[in-house]
């Protein structure tokens, strides 16, 4: 089961935050095909937001083919995101964590690491790999 958290200062609309958090969970393998998403009532009880916001997020995910609503049963994950196998993903995650430890060891702050990471992502994107 996924637990949502909202950041009111993010500048991202609430429904989009829900969409992004579900996609994030799909990428990390925290949600898998067949899993049921929490009902609008369950999300609303936890976050005190308008149920239409939750439904809007689920409709957006459905439009992208990531989930399916089965009337009377709930909304279910249809497919996952990210092509790498869970094993490859775990290995890459460990390597990245190792790199970050090295970076902290070299005296970099969190912001420095984020800046380096973002810059590298941008550089790779320009090479046309991603």
């Amino acid at each position, binding site marked *: 089961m996924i637990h949502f958290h909202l950041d*009111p200062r993010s500048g991202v609309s609430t429904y989009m935050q829900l969409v992004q958090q579900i996609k994030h969970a799909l990428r990390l393998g925290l949600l898998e095909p067949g899993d049921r998403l929490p009902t609008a*009532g369950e999300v*609303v009880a*936890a976050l*005190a937001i*308008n*149920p*239409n*916001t939750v439904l809007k997020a689920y409709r957006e995910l459905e439009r992208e083919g990531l989930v399916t609503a089965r009337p009377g049963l709930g909304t279910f994950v249809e497919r996952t995101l990210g092509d790498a196998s869970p094993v490859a993903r775990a290995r890459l995650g460990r390597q990245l964590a190792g790199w970050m430890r090295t970076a902290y060891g070299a005296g970099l702050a969190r912001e420095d690491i984020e800046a380096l990471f973002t810059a590298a992502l941008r550089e790779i994107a320009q090479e046309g790999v991603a």
Partner: protein
Amino acid sequence: MINAVEASGVGRRYGRIWALRGCSVALPEGQVAALVGPNGAGKSTLLNLIAGLLRPSEGTLQRFGRPVSDRPEALARVGYMSQDTALYPTFTASELLRMGARLNPGWDDDWARERLTRLRLPANVPASNLSGGQRSQIALVLALAKRPRLLLLDEPLASLDPLARNDVMALLMQAVAETGMTVVLSSHIISDLVETCDWLVAINQGRVQVSGNIDELLDSHKLITGPREAVDTLPPRVSIVAQTITGRQASVLLRSGEHPIGPVWTVHRPTLDELVLNYLRQPEASVLPGPVAVAG
């Protein structure tokens, strides 16, 4: 789609003073509407008129396509919670529920008792010995147990701490998810409404200034900031709602249009606070879709 509330030219006068004048709004069924405005703007008067507790001095007012009346069958599916959440102080939650069951034909007692248990509200303590947050939650459970099709809440969050505000809103939003009822709630704390409301009605000096779907309102406005002298170079057909000058900088709320406004301006989508405050500062500006357009 049917309108839960439709007001046309509604006014209410106390003696010679008009508390509300020329009020025309249409609220589609199933919306959670925020009624905002400064103190004394006429929010409570409008809620009382919709509830049928007051009669309009002029104009017509309908609920679900029928003229508002205070006959029992008309009130059976209308819930109303006043500003001071008046619970009889010596009654316990359990006694209040028993009273609600006697007085309301469509009362859902199982739901109400289940909700009290789940919210861990003490059933056998007199209301006067409970916290403000607990009293508000009980008052809301009572209003919801009636299974209203339209629920009117006058400042339901005003006296509550942030935790209690969250609990009350979560209870309300769950009931909306379960039933699809229409809610009108008044507040002057706009940040409480951002996550919970679909619809905005802003009233100011006894007049309705803004009424519309919140997402559409925010999409149809732009907040631009730039050098103050650039205000004079904005194209004449741009529709300015309000502007604030701070030092050398100007901040202008515009209604979005096709007109290019020049590269000196930084453009962003306004937040609900920014939209409301800019309109309230400028009482003569308004966005009011006609009742016909809203119903379509």
